């Protein structure tokens, strides 16, 4: 039997909620920019976050970069061999890494590592009233908590991406030249011929944008946590999911604008 109760479905309520949230993130972004350029500058806070986001993520980014480069070489080798184009493997790896996989995979890995921790840390600070304590001390919590994280992510993501690009190409070289026997000269020459500085630069611009996107979303989710330990868990999950999805969507938008 069907229930006789009328079903109230409001398709707009979810959309309005999402738009509201987008507006709040935008407001937080503006306040973050405002506080970034307002004295006093909290340089030691930024350096600490740069260490956490950048230095401490380097191992995971290197592993991701090397294996991505290696598998790219392996896959493209089997394809190119069919028409004798093995020499293009190097260029394929280099272009894929610098333009696309370097920035995107780095951003996704750092989101999983640092974004989740930002949301959890700020969320815990919210539910234990540490953020309120800053406000009561007449200090702006955005300046002390959000600015250092966003600025550090903005600076460190391009640095990590450069590392990922570099080790990715090395990984491709090891598999292509050392394991599959592609001619070393052809491998390197094709990279030099096809890879422009612009490819690398655009990848780094993307990385910087991803840095802002994931850190802002993660801080936002943590900053506005409610509901105790459960709320912190929810914020952390949402931070990673929303950041990752936003990175992939904005990647398409940025790519279509750049190349």
């Amino acid at each position, binding site marked *: 039997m069907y229930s006789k109760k009328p079903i109230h479905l409001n398709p707009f309520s979810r959309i309005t909620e999402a738009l509201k949230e987008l507006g709040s993130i935008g407001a937080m972004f503006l306040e973050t920019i405002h506080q970034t350029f307002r004295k006093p500058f909290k340089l030691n806070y930024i350096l600490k976050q740069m260490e956490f986001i950048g230095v401490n993520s380097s191992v995971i980014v290197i592993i991701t970069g090397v294996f991505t480069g290696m598998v790219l070489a392996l896959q493209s080798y089997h394809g190119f061999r069919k028409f004798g184009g093995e020499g293009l493997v190097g260029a394929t790896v280099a272009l894929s890494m610098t333009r696309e996989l370097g920035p995107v995979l780095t951003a996704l890995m750092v989101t999983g590592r640092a974004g989740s921790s930002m949301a959890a840390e700020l969320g815990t*600070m919210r539910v*234990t009233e540490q953020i*309120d*304590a800053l406000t*009561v001390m007449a200090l702006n919590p955005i300046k002390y908590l959000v600015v250092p994280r966003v600025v550090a992510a903005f600076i460190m993501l391009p640095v990590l991406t450069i590392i990922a690009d570099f080790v990715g190409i090395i990984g491709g070289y090891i598999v292509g030249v050392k394991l599959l026997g592609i001619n070393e000269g052809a491998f390197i020459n094709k990279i030099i011929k096809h890879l422009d500085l612009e490819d690398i630069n655009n990848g780094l611009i993307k990385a910087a944008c991803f840095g802002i996107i994931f850190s802002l979303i993660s801080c936002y989710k943590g900053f506005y946590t409610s509901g105790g330990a459960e709320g912190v868990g929810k914020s952390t999950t949402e931070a990673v999911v929303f950041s990752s999805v936003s990175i992939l969507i904005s990647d398409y938008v940025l790519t279509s604008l750049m190349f």
Partner: protein
Amino acid sequence: MEDVAIRIVDLQKSFGEQKVLDGINLEVETGKITVIIGKSGGGKSVLLKNVIGLIKPDSGEIWIDGVETSNLAERDMNSIRMKFGMLFQEAALFDSMDLFDNVAFPLREHTKMSEKEIERAVEERLKQVGLSGFSEKMPSELSGGMRKRVGLARALVLDPEIILFDEPTSALDPIISLTILDLIKQTQTYFRKTYLVISHDILGMFRIADKVAMLYDGKIIEFGTPHDIKRSSNEATKEFLKATKIPGFAGGDL
């Protein structure tokens, strides 16, 4: 400073349909301990957060030291907040810092004191709350009572005019509660600052309060000395007092 440190006039605050504060009128005297008693979830914390500007009221006025603060911009509110110290319910110590840095934090951010002067001031505050020698401990290594003592040291370190206490004895055993209450009383007697305390621990509060306000149903239904409150004929107050009586035990005979 005038005689009334905080004057609250007809303060109203609702969350959605729920009316939490329904016309609060209260005067907090300068240099005294005023305690607001009320049941859990009755809006005490909301009232305190309105005073310090963490929540904006729907209507009504809050006068702090002669300035109406309910509609102040954040920057002006911050200069009002400099008059305040606050001890949070769970102390709200920054858990990324050790005790020394926690207590030193307001000094480093708001004063131009040298590290040496800061060290002296922090050690003195930690000594006052009985925790000298603990300055390198992290907040996670401390018990709840110790954390509250550090929270009190941090609240006092800038010599604020008004100190707010959010449930200072909740989640503590009776003996630790007593030491915290004694510490509140001692520091107040020593510094003569204005203390505003919210709590549901009515017996504990009678030990320290100069004035007691009963918050019930979103209103202040009684205001007077602890002595007045004990003799109250108000039904809600009597019920609250009755619930704390344990016949035959200390505190049962009020």
